């Protein structure tokens, strides 16, 4: 049973839960263990979905079909422009920006006028939106109370007022914890993310309940709607509204970053730029999820309440109640409460910062008679102002809600609000990407756009509510038809939002560009323009220091900081700054440009950049640099940056060249060493046969009486050694030719089988002498490769003569196998000799390395045959290697690729 008391108790309990979540978030933040993860950040963006989404989307869908989706497609597309958002975040962190008013003011020379103007536009545009949230809460409470049959609370206490008061309390507790408005409110963000989950869950629950509980699923619902003529219209896209569709996408795309609450959440509360990577898809996914059941709910409501008196804006509540699902209705109510409170809390924080820093502070600082200028510690006053602003804004919202009631001025405020903040777009985008944009241009654009918005959208909404005469809408101002508020200069056929957006943005952009082009920025503006537009390039802040010249005293600046930040926080920040500068005690800091900037940045965080500039200027005597000089410094800085980039790239090139040279040098040295090794080995190898020839010749020469048998034997050895010497020299020459690439090759089609057979025949005698069996497994018409026939024969003979050298006599067996597959020919020479160790398998292919133990056995070859063979085979694109184990014979294998087939 839903008694009013129970519903109110539940609301209070839910708000209590929010307090607990926020408390937890703040406690974790204080402990240095932030709970703001990428997911929490993405969910907190969903503060975009207010009660206007939660209740109002269904209402919009009952009249406009799917057109309500534009409000969510725009943000999806805008978020994909991550570069813009990252730039906003970077600038805001570097400049310690606390609100969108501060952002615009800071860009255009820290102008108090601009800050105030933006604040006024934001307050006028957004306070009614806050009122709408309160109205939604009030309306949902009323519906629940109606079902319970009960009356309002005894004593006629207004429950909406209680909720507004609780929200003010929450916002004060969690929104003004720190004086420094650039400090994040992690507890508040956590609570907002939590609320986002609650409202999504509630909306999905009621969507599923209606679609699958009350109707037979999506297709059943659509079928029944299609059968009803007045509903079928909602299912079709209406291409006559194409202009409106696009305009609304543009409008909502701008709103997602320029609504004060969105700026607060996306930019000010951002912990880590990397979180954007998640938000860029998770938040749009959230939007898809919360919108899937909007149209089904609208159709379900229209079908169910056909012929009855109903309000489509409350379908999400009345549909479950109509089926008696009271607990679901309660969940929906809590979801709606989440949507409303989330928006109210963040918007109020954002607006109160703006009101305090950009409206109240300048006035207080100017009003000397108040004595504020002399008071010692202003930090308490500042917090007081901000809290008062929160209460004031909520009170304004509440009063507007009470005064407007069911008036159109309240119901239609959602998009009107969006159109108001869209006026910030030219000054924001221009400020971030166009250095020439000036303060005068921004002021003119904002004023013009705001005026057109007021005339074409805000005032007509008052007129529709019957608050003012509607003559200017119906007949035009002073009866001039071209001035009709919603068909300006005869522009008709658009809906009022597109009409207003078109004219206001035209005026805004036109004035901004035109006035900017014909006005000169002052020195501060030019400096700020540079810092904003080139934020990604301003790594070092060297120019910052040079852009300020004057005299200041540390004591005066410190006392300024103490007055606005409070002594404790001021000391903390000073100590941190001193540590960063490498100075142990901040009293020793010089009052240089860097320190002045630091002080100004700290003050900016507390009272906004415009007021901070005024305060710093009041204690530091700044020399006016003049525009020319500032531009010179900036130019110089740009040039220096360009030069240093050039230098960097040159030095990188140099480094690369040096590394290459070093590598080449290494290679040369290695080659040189190899050459030395080769020469010493060659001389050694040549000396061995020479020595034996010489020794034997000397013996023959010295001993004429040597008998014939010995003489013959010696001469035989001499001949053999001389042959060996010739062979060696030939092979060395061969090797040198191969290595230097000067060898002559005659490539032709060669039948490998034939080569193998020829080699076996020519060495047949040698095998027979030693009694070694030679077997061949060679196809009749062997595979044909493109190679040099003589060279291949050389390889074959080398492998065979190696084999016959190492196999034992009589029992020796050498087999030759030739086979081929699709890509290559494989030739194997297998022996049953003593085999090779793994190490030997590798070294025998090195020059002058021979198989067998060279210490005990007389070398049997030149040690160049295998290296040469390998060179030859590799020249033809093949491989030569050996597979062997000690005691198991050796298998020499070489491959030669087959010529690529013609097809």
């Amino acid at each position: 049973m839903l008694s009013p008391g129970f519903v109110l108790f539940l609301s209070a309990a839910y708000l209590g839960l929010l307090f607990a979540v926020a408390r937890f978030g703040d406690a974790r933040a204080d402990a240095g263990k932030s709970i703001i993860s990428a997911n929490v950040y993405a969910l907190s963006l969903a503060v975009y979905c207010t009660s206007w989404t939660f209740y109002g989307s269904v209402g919009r869908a009952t009249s406009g079909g799917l057109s309500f989706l534009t409000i969510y497609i725009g943000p999806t597309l805008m978020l994909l422009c991550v570069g813009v958002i990252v730039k906003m975040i970077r600038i805001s962190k570097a400049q310690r920006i606390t609100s969108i008013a501060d952002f615009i003011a800071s860009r255009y020379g820290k102008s108090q006028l601009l800050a105030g103007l933006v604040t006024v536009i934001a307050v006028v545009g957004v306070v009614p939106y806050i009122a709408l949230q309160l109205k939604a809460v009030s309306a949902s409470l009323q519906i629940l109370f109606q079902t319970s049959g009960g009356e309002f609370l005894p004593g006629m206490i207004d429950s909406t007022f209680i909720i507004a008061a609780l929200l003010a309390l929450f916002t004060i507790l969690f929104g003004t914890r720190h004086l420094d408005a650039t400090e994040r409110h992690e507890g508040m963000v956590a609570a907002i993310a939590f609320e986002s989950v609650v409202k999504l869950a509630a909306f999905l629950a009621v969507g599923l309940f209606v679609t699958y509980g009350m109707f037979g699923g999506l297709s059943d619902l659509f079928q029944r709607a299609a059968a009803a003529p007045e509903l079928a219209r909602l299912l079709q896209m209406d291409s006559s509204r194409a202009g409106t569709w696009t305009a609304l996408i543009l409008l909502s795309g701008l709103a997602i970053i320029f609504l004060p609450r969105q700026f607060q959440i996306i930019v000010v509360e951002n912990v880590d730029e990397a979180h954007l990577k998640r938000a860029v898809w998770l938040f749009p996914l959230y939007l898809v999820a919360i919108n899937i059941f909007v149209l089904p709910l609208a159709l379900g409501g229209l079908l169910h309440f056909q012929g009855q008196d109903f309000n489509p804006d409350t379908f999400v509540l009345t549909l479950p109640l109509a089926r008696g699902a009271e607990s679901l209705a309660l969940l929906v109510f809590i979801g709606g409460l989440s949507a409303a409170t989330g928006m109210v809390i963040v918007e109020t924080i954002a607006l109160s910062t703006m009101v305090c820093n950009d409206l109240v502070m300048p006035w207080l600082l100017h009003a000397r008679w108040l004595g504020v200028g002399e008071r010692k510690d202003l930090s308490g006053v500042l917090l007081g102002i901000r809290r008062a602003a929160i209460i004031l804004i909520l009170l304004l919202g509440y009063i507007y809600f009470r005064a407007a009631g069911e008036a159109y001025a309240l119901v239609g405020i959602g998009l009107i609000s969006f159109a108001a903040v869209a006026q910030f777009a030219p000054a924001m985008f221009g400020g971030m990407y166009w250095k020439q944009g000036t303060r005068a241009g921004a002021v003119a654009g904002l004023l013009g756009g705001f005026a057109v918005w007021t005339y074409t959208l805000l005032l007509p909404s008052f007129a529709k509510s019957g608050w003012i005469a509607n003559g200017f809408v119906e007949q035009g101002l002073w009866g001039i038809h071209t001035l009709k508020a919603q068909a300006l200069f005869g522009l008709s056929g658009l809906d009022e939002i597109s009409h207003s957006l078109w004219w206001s943005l035209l005026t805004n952009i036109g004035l901004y560009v035109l006035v900017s082009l014909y006005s000169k920025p002052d020195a501060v503006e030019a400096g700020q323009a540079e810092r904003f537009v080139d934020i990604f390039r301003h790594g070092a802040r060297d120019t910052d220091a040079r852009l300020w010249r004057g005299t200041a005293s540390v004591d005066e600046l410190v006392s300024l900081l103490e007055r606005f930040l409070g002594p404790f926080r001021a000391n903390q920040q000073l100590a941190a700054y001193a540590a960063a500068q490498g100075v142990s005690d901040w009293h020793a800091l010089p009052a240089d440009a860097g320190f002045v900037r630091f002080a100004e940045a700290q003050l900016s965080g507390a009272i906004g950049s415009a007021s901070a500039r005024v305060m710093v200027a009041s204690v530091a005597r700044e020399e006016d640099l003049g525009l020319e000089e500032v531009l010179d410094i900036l130019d110089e800085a740009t040039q220096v940056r360009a030069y240093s980039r050039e230098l960097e790239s040159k030095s990188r090139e140099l480094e690369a060249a040096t590394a290459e040279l070093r590598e080449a040098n290494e290679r040369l040295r290695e080659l040189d060493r190899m050459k030395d090794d080769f020469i010493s080995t060659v001389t050694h190898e040549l000396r061995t046969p020479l020595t034996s020839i010489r020794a034997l010749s000397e013996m023959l020469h010295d001993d004429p009486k040597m008998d014939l048998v010995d003489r013959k034997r010696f001469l035989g050895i001499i001949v053999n050694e001389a042959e060996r010497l010739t062979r060696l020299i030939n092979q060395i020459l061969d090797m040198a030719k191969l290595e230097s690439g000067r060898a002559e090759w005659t490539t032709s089609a060669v039948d490998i089988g034939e080569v193998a057979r020829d080699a076996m025949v020519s060495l047949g005698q040698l095998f027979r002498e030693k009694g070694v069996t030679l077997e061949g497994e060679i196809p009749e018409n062997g595979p044909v490769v493109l190679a040099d026939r003589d060279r291949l024969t050389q390889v074959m003979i080398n492998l065979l003569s190696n084999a016959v050298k190492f196999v034992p006599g009589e029992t020796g067996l050498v087999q030759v196998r030739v086979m081929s597959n699709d890509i290559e020919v494989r030739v194997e020479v297998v022996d049953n000799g003593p085999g090779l160790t793994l190490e030997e398998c590798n070294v025998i292919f090195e020059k002058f390395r021979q198989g067998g133990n060279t210490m005990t056995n007389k070398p049997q070859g030149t040690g160049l045959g295998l290296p040469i063979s390998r060179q030859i085979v590799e020249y033809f694109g093949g491989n030569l290697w050996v597979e062997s184990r000690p005691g198991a014979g050796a298998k020499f294998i070489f491959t030669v690729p087959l010529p690529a087939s013609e097809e």
Partner: protein
Amino acid sequence: MKRANPMRQRLAALGLLGIPLLTYPLLSLPTGEIAGIPASYLYLFGVWTLLIALAAMVAERRGK
């Protein structure tokens, strides 16, 4: 000079792609219904979700 962040550029390209896909005149193409659900409803949510899925793939890609 540092090359502009490729991930940001890919995402922005997706955003630019989304504009023609989710506005007229392409929106007037899907007509009729599929399995009892209006084609325009399926098209809007389908393209929208697809864009988000692509964005998620681009944004969450590990590596450089």
